[in-house]
């Protein structure tokens, strides 16, 4: 099977799963921005998704993408370290055109994964999980599993969560700033002219997505201060 036993095939898996995760982030960001306008509207979105069958199918699909992306990342890194050989260079320099992020994708990915764990604890475990197991492990003041607006307000009124989420999103920005054009390069949809175009399109797109997330965090943090 070429997706496992050829180097380009393995990269295609990284590229397709990564691209799908960028699409998911876009969808997630758009949902979050509803909270900027109205808490009730946001809760309506939470209710619409909740633990309905389509949301569960989506969650399972998403988890599958994340696991495949992780497993392949570790697998590729081990293979690449082996290919580099046991004897490393004494002096290494990074040429100007080489992005810092491109050489640190695994580390950035690990930070993103840790952030994801925190995020699942803060939100998912109080929402969809409670609905699935019919639990009642809510935060004091949370009005049922679909009261997402309360959880946003509760989480981002605590400065250390705000800080952790900002660090998480910054790492995600670096990861995606390389990941976006890299995914298209791997799929072969690139050339001398399109290379710069994809880089610019990618940077703008990724920045907008991350800013969407930051806006919600910032608004609720400043609201809590007032």
């Amino acid at each position, binding site marked *: 099977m070429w997706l496992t036993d050829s180097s380009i095939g393995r*990269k295609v898996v990284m590229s397709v799963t990564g691209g799908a995760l960028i699409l998911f982030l876009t969808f997630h960001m758009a949902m979050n921005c509803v909270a900027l306008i109205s808490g009730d509207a946001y809760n309506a979105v939470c209710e619409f998704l909740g633990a309905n069958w389509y949301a569960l199918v989506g969650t399972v699909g998403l988890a599958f993408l994340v696991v495949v992306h992780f497993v392949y990342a570790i697998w590729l890194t081990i293979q690449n370290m082996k290919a580099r050989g046991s004897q490393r260079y*004494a002096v290494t320099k990074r040429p100007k*055109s080489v*992005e810092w992020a491109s050489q640190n994708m695994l580390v950035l990915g690990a930070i993103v994964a840790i952030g994801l764990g925190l995020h699942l604890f803060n939100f998912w475990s109080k929402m969809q999980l409670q609905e699935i197991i019919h639990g009642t492990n809510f935060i004091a003041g949370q009005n049922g599993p679909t009261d997402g607006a309360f959880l946003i307000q509760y989480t981002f009124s605590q400065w250390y969560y705000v800080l952790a989420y900002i660090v998480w999103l910054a790492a995600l920005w670096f990861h995606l700033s390389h990941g976006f054009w890299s995914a298209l390069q791997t799929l*072969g949809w690139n050339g*001398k002219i399109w290379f710069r175009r994809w880089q610019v399109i990618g940077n703008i797109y990724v920045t907008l997505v991350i800013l969407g997330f930051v806006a919600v965090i910032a608004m609720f943090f400043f609201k809590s201060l007032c």
Partner: protein
Amino acid sequence: MEKNISFKLKIWRQRGPKEKGQFKVYEMKDIPTDTSFLEMLDILNEQLINAGEEPVVFDHDCREGICGMCSLYINGHPHGPATGATTCQLYMRRFKDGETITVEPWRSAGFPVIRDLMVDRRAYDKIMQAGGYVSINTGGVPDANAIPISKEKADLAMDAASCIGCGACVAACKNGSAMLFVSAKVSQLALLPQGQVEAERRAKAMLSKMDELGFGNCTNTRACEAECPKCISISNIARLNREFIAAKLND
């Protein structure tokens, strides 16, 4: 302007593929700045031989940047600090008086050290033998205008064909991947009508040979492109990816 400089050379010495190597430091005195890097190593070797020591082993041949024989990882760059040039085209005027110059062999599992600064690059020959050629009968030499080829394609094919197979891409890559080399060799033929006929088979055969020989997976860091003495573009890698994916989908 010419002047003389003195510096320290920190050179990797290793007696054989299985033996443990280490750095040795040599003092170089009053070397004219218009000496080429390889001439400077010749001077060092002459001194070593006169002192009854083993000379430093390094690869070199044409000394005019076209054969792809010279290598050397100098101060953290394959082929040294100059861009778009091979080690043999590097001159001592690039270095400062009193500097320590670190010289290492290519380091990659695909290119094991033979001795000192010389590495075994036969893996590249094996990749070429796997499919880097045209096997269809192209007949006698046709008239140059018999097969029309656009200027754009001809230029891209020529750019790809400027790869000298030195291995700097593998040496520069943190993943020890040979994708830039393989993509250039696939592209130089895939872009032209007579090479296009076997393009799919070629991409599959050369890539699987590359994987088999233990080169890494490309992660698009672009270090290869930045360090390539012939400035081969990673757009060739995109073309290889395209050819390979299309070939696999057609299977």
